[in-house]
């Protein structure tokens, strides 16, 4: 079974939640879904991140019983639902709160579906609706998700994987997406702009990893974006 087939099967299984208004697919599978024909060749992780706006939490919670035939809540990590079949990916719920500061995080506590709400996700906005074999799912606008990936502090292999997601977004971005990303970058405060630039330099130096897309052919595009964001805002001394 290919990764694409597993991803599509997971989307089918999680459809009741994914089609709930406000819910977005976020994270590493977005570049895969945005590739032509949702080709899913940019594999960096084996899970499906589902962004749940805190205002939609109650509605999403009502749909959870429909997922139980395919997934079960992890006893270790309450926001993770593990698949009952190896043909499905793990599902990871994350909270989205547009009013939150990008540098903050909090827990939206709930006995059934608690959520970690990462402030950087406040940078995302609803984008394209995609038809994945009959499931209507929504992904964020590329600009905001790219910025979210670049503003977040990460370390180690997980950090590299997340930066590869940013690279995947960069590969699928159109000029207008990059214009929008630079505009949103300018509105960040200086410390967060610095984080974006620092992460772009890290992305430009990541080596190839087995089983993951090779970032090296994209180095010129990374350098071009770095130059654009630097030119877009004057930094304090």
């Amino acid at each position: 079974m290919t990764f694409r087939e597993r991803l599509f099967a997971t989307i089918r299984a999680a459809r009741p939640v994914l089609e709930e208004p406000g819910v977005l697919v976020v994270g590493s599978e977005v570049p895969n879904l945005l590739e032509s024909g949702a080709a899913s060749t940019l594999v960096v992780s084996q899970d499906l991140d589902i962004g749940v706006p805190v205002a939609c939490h109650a509605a999403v919670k009502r749909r959870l019983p429909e997922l139980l035939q395919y997934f079960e809540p992890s006893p270790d990590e309450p926001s993770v639902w593990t698949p009952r079949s190896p043909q499905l990916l793990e599902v990871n719920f994350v909270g989205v709160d547009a009013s939150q500061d990008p540098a903050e995080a909090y827990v939206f506590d709930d006995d059934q579906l608690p959520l970690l709400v990462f402030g950087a996700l406040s940078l995302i906005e609803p984008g394209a609706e995609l038809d994945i074999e009959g499931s209507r799912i929504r992904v964020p606008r590329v600009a905001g998700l790219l910025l979210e990936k670049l503003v977040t502090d990460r370390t180690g292999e997980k950090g590299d994987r997340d930066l590869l997601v940013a690279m995947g977004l960069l590969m699928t971005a159109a000029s207008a997406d990059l214009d929008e990303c630079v505009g949103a970058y300018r509105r960040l405060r200086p410390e967060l702009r610095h984080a974006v630039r620092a992460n772009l330099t890290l992305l430009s130096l990541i080596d190839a990893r087995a089983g993951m897309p090779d970032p090296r052919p994209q180095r010129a595009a990374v350098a071009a974006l770095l130059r654009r964001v630097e030119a877009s805002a004057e930094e304090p001394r």
Partner: protein
Amino acid sequence: MSAVFERRLREQRARVLIRTHGYRQRRHAHGVWLRLRRVLADAGAAYAVSEADARALVAEGHAVQPVGAELDPPKLIVTVPADRVRTMAGAAPVPIRMGGDLLAAPCLVLVPFGPAPPQSGDH
């Protein structure tokens, strides 16, 4: 709140504190790695060269990257057009990453990227 969430929140806040520290230090010694990465990010290729070759390039007026002098031991990092590097028999390509080959070279030549390629996703 679950112990896992508590741990992840703690880790996230620690990362933010470290980032804030790094931001405050950006003009100082701690920021040297970012400045080095920034210079490398603009390079499409890198070569280790002898000190004599590097000095010759400086004498020709090619740009020296100041971040090299901030390292200990210092590095001579010179940015040079691709055409000029092709004439240097002793220039040994090194991978552009924070790895041993690049960090161990006392003298580096960087070749900047050419004009930005069009975005693959343009339509």
